């Protein structure tokens, strides 16, 4: 029997993707695409411009310039490889072992090699598209600064492609081995913790070693030491280093085909080895993947703790909150993200602590107040990102269970109420932690402490409501993976709306804070004037509207949901 072509094996996937685009278009989604395009281009431009100036500066440095540029590219590609391996391991678990089309593929007379290549391609595409897109402005900046010419374009693609294939093969192989040791669902749990733990550790280490010091050669004993460090390959056995050499030798006019050959031959060898491993282990791994995860759980603990605390609530609200808390903490892929969150808080506070504000001499009151004030915007942005991940998907995740909620006498207000508080209370704790501790570290005056705390509370209530409201406006009922929901169009719109609200609140609050700063600067007593109260009232009104309107709109939208 002749085997189906690879494109035929992948047909359901690409046809589904095409159909989605068609449906989007017929729903008048060109506006969405345009908005996505504009945001994408803006992001690309920002990355390009930043890198362009850095590389232009490097280029102006005699001798050291290309070394610095190469080192930077090496570091960027190395972090890409690290991200890609982690992301491939997790994606491979879904595409090779948990995807819905596997029963059909495995039961069909399709040979193992086609299944392997099709699934490898799927894994590669799903886990690498973001990195590939991110590489575009980076490599363009290199090409422009070093005048790589038009030919650099296909050359860059030729270099990047095997660099993406290698982590996909390694990630898939790692998953294959792990699934043969643990059941797939258990492996997914383990991987979530290991991957996020590793990512968190990496971020922590990268931050704590303070890489910004590398930018100041004064720290080295002499120039030769510095050059020696720059010349040493970051990792001679890693494809990121080969890709860096391939790009830099091309751009600096000393073209060397060896790194490129090394990339392609290694990629080919790895695909072959990966296929052999797949042939040997896939069948047993796939069988193990059908086994369930953990079975018995302790439900009483939640009833005694959270249930008792919420005793004052009506039974439907209490049980709804309890249900959401249980679902969150029993899903490893959800709670494990708290590891990253904890790391984020530590890095955030570390950054504030590392600010060159407290170096012995008295710090300018103006700067401390300014940093404390701008910190509100930054903290707001961090809270918005967290809300996008945890609160925005809340309505979407109920999609498959809406039959129960809508056929029961549960008032949708109760549902929205529970979702809002389950998401907003932890967000509020985090907000207070970020703002309060930062202000303590900055040693701000009581006025700014109060302004900061009250503002962040107001903003957090609005962020929670916006996340829930936009989550209801742009639901993703078909997506099973909660982590994919925030990256949808609705997630983007939510982030843009939140940033707009943050900008407006900060602008309004600055008018009040400026009056305070001016009074202190001029040595006058700080008086809470009518003008100040007016600005505070406008900020409060903005936060209140940002809370009430999205919740109201979300509720109206939910009432019209059809399943």
């Amino acid at each position, binding site marked *: 029997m002749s085997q189906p072509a690879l494109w035929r094996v992948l047909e359901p996937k690409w046809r589904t993707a095409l159909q989605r685009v068609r449906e989007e278009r017929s729903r008048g989604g060109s506006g969405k695409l345009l908005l996505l395009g504009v945001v994408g281009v803006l992001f690309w431009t920002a990355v390009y411009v930043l890198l362009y100036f850095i590389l232009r500066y490097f280029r102006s440095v005699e001798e050291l310039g290309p070394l610095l540029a190469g080192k930077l590219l090496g570091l960027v590609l190395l972090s890409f490889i690290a991200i890609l391996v982690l992301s491939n391991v997790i994606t491979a678990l879904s595409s090779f072992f948990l995807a819905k089309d596997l029963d059909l593929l495995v039961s069909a007379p399709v040979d193992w090699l086609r299944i392997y290549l099709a699934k490898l391609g799927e894994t590669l595409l799903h886990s690498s598209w973001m990195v590939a897109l991110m590489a575009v402005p980076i490599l363009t900046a290199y090409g422009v600064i070093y005048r790589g010419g038009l030919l650099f374009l296909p050359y860059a693609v030729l270099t990047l492609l095997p660099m993406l294939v290698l982590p996909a093969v390694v990630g898939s192989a790692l998953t294959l081995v792990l699934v043969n040791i643990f059941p797939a669902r258990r492996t997914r749990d383990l991987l979530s913790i290991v991957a996020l733990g590793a990512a968190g550790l990496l971020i922590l280490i990268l931050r704590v070693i303070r890489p910004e010091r590398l930018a100041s050669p004064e720290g080295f004993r002499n120039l030769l030491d510095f050059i020696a460090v720059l010349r040493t390959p970051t990792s001679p056995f890693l494809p990121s280093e080969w890709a860096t050499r391939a790009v830099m030798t091309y751009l600096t006019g000393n073209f060397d085909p060896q790194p490129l050959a090394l990339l392609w031959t290694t990629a080919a060898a790895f695909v072959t080895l990966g296929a052999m491993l797949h042939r040997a282990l896939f069948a047993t791994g796939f069988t193990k993947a059908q086994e369930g*995860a953990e*079975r018995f759980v302790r439900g009483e603990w939640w009833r005694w703790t959270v249930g008792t605390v919420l005793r004052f609530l009506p039974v*439907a609200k209490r049980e709804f909150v309890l249900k959401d808390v249980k679902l969150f903490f029993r*899903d490893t892929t959800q709670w494990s993200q708290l590891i990253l969150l904890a790391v984020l808080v530590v890095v955030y506070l570390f950054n504030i602590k590392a600010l060159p504000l407290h170096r012995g001499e008295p710090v300018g009151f103006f700067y401390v107040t300014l940093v404390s004030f701008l910190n509100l915007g930054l903290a707001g942005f961090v809270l918005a990102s967290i809300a996008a991940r945890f609160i925005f998907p809340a309505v979407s995740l109920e999609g498959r269970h*809406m039959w129960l909620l809508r*056929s029961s*006498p549960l*008032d949708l207000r109760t549902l929205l109420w529970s979702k809002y508080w389950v998401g907003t209370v932890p967000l509020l704790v985090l907000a207070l932690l970020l703002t309060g501790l930062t202000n303590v570290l900055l040693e701000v005056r009581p006025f700014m402490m109060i302004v900061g705390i009250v503002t962040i509370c107001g903003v957090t209530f609005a962020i929670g409501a916006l996340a829930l409201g936009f989550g209801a406006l742009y639901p993703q009922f078909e997506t099973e993976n909660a982590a994919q929901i925030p990256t949808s169009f609705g997630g983007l719109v939510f982030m843009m709306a939140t940033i707009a609200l943050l900008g407006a609140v900060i602008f309004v609050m600055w008018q009040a804070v400026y009056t305070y700063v001016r009074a202190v600067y001029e040595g006058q007593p700080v008086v809470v004037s009518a003008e100040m109260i007016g600005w505070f009232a406008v900020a409060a009104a903005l936060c209140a509207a940002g809370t009430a309107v999205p919740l109201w709109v979300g509720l109206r939208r939910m009432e019209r949901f059809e399943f």
Partner: protein
Amino acid sequence: MIRLENLTKHYGSFVAVDDISLEVPRGALYGFLGPNGAGKTTTLRIIAGILRPTNGRVLLGGDDVHQNPIAAKLRLGFIPDRPFVYDKLTGAEFLRFVAALYGQEGDAIERRVTELLEVFELASWKNELVEAYSHGMRQKLIISSALIHRPEYIVVDEPMVGLDPKAARLLKDIFRQFVGRGGTVLMSTHTLEVAEAMCDRIAIMQHGKIVAEGTVDDLRRQHRAGDASLEELFLKLTGGAQVRELAEVLGYGDPTT
């Protein structure tokens, strides 16, 4: 009594339910039959308050499901065709949660949970996560959840799918006893033997319309079908003549030769 008045549902230009009116009397077990895509599930989901009708209304014991949803839904137990349950809750937790949605809790509900899980032979799985349940076990759990608040009306879509023969028999007995005590069941099914054996009245739906309604004997009389079985009646009413061509499609030649 479940009453549908001029119920219509459009999906864009597609008419899924086309101006149907129906009355299911109290204490009746009512069968809702029809080929795939006839509009049965849409109708049942409208009755359960999950979908809003384009036109018409649904009354459950006098309460309009869409005008007075809380009162209407308090009386209803809905069993969907696809058993989507929260995977990370245990069976007992799921039942407690459903009871809470109906405002019920306490010792009586704890006893009811135990009782229902025992009846459906899920007692030993009580504290296991639903993700470990088989399709049939999930179906049993959903049936239990529809009974937990002691509803007056049960609306059920394809109840026998995924159930083992013992559970299917149990469900039939439960429905019989339920209607015997004055409850009302509206059941959509493709298992015509079940419908014929259990249902007091039957409606056959096709292309969004009700094409026949009454007892099995009524239907035989209306369509001059002699003592034809419900299966033959169903095929006659829904254009099942194509079945004869199946043998050819399957490549076995003409079965009459």
